[in-house]
């Protein structure tokens, strides 16, 4: 695949390296001359100096035949415009934008960017996983379906301990997938499976039902 990467910061650099190793044809576009030279010295001629939001630069790098454009500069507005120019002027089939401000994810989707990656949200989710007392942890987001896979821990004082799964008031669009007990091996829950203190429950849900799912599993 021919992939254009806009922005040669840390994200752009490691992304390009990984894509090159996978055998793709990659070209980076970077405004800063020094950064550009350093990359050319190290990786060969894979970096062009220029503004990746400018149609003239994108013409120069052959965006018309690109299969994908990934914009990973540090500024949301630059990433948005680079992707929009690629999409609407050069008809690049797939555009991916890095988003710093998580609120911009919805906006970018609305404005036609195919995929958005929010670095802030990813870091937050990872930290969340490491905070043991956190009641609900996001494990995975299934974007195009609006679903997410979450983990809920059952604390020792939970009012739902000993109750079978079928009696829990689970919200719509929520399904329990797996229960990992403290001492037992992981099981796929049946309606009669009862919750125990310390269980880790893995479930699929929607962002809107998250709170209701947490309450259903842990009691109020």
């Amino acid at each position, binding site marked *: 695949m021919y992939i254009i990467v806009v922005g040669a910061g840390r994200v752009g650099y490691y992304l390009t390296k990984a894509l090159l190793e996978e055998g793709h044809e990659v070209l980076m576009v970077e405004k800063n001359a020094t950064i550009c030279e350093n990359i050319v010295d190290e990786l060969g001629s894979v970096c062009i100096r220029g503004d990746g*939001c*400018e*149609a*003239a630069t994108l013409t120069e790098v052959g965006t018309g035949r690109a299969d994908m454009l990934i914009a990973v500069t540090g500024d949301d507005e630059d990433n*948005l415009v680079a992707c929009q120019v690629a999409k609407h002027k050069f008809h690049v089939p797939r555009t991916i934008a890095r988003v710093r401000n998580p609120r911009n994810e919805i906006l970018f989707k609305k*404005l036609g960017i195919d995929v958005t990656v929010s670095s802030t949200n990813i870091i937050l989710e990872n930290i969340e996983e490491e905070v043991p007392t956190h009641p609900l942890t996001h494990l995975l987001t299934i974007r195009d379906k609006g679903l997410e896979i979450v983990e809920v821990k059952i604390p020792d004082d939970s009012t739902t301990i000993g109750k079978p799964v079928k009696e829990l008031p689970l919200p719509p669009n929520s399904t329990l997938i797996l229960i990992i007990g403290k001492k037992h091996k992981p099981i796929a829950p049946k309606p009669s499976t009862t919750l125990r203190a310390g269980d880790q429950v893995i479930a699929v849900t929607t962002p809107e039902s998250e709170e209701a799912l947490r309450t259903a599993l842990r009691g109020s």
Partner: protein
Amino acid sequence: MKVVIMGCGRVGARLSGLLDNEGHIVTILDTDSYSFRRLPSNFNGTALLGNGIDEEALKRAGIEEADAFVAVTQGDNRNVMAAQIAKHIFNVPKVICRIYDPLRHELYNTLGIETFSPTTIFAQILKEKLES
């Protein structure tokens, strides 16, 4: 008319003054409070510290009731992004956006945003001056 202007540079400040003089309700946004010095001393509108690509800042500026939004910061991309938020999220009836880069200006015009490129306009004026 209620107008929200983003960017209190020379153009933004001057436009604010002109509209304010005619009795329009003007709110001007800038990320640097120092730029508000450019506003005329008799300016009756609101000068608000904030970034126009942030929905919250736009709401504080009263974008939800605005009749028009004008983006005139130094950054083409910031202008384009703010203009798209104003148009597609807040449905402001009239949105105008400055884009220096002539090629990007053409593109966003075709995408339904009213844009103008001072580069093209000014070069044309200079050429005509030289030829006359």
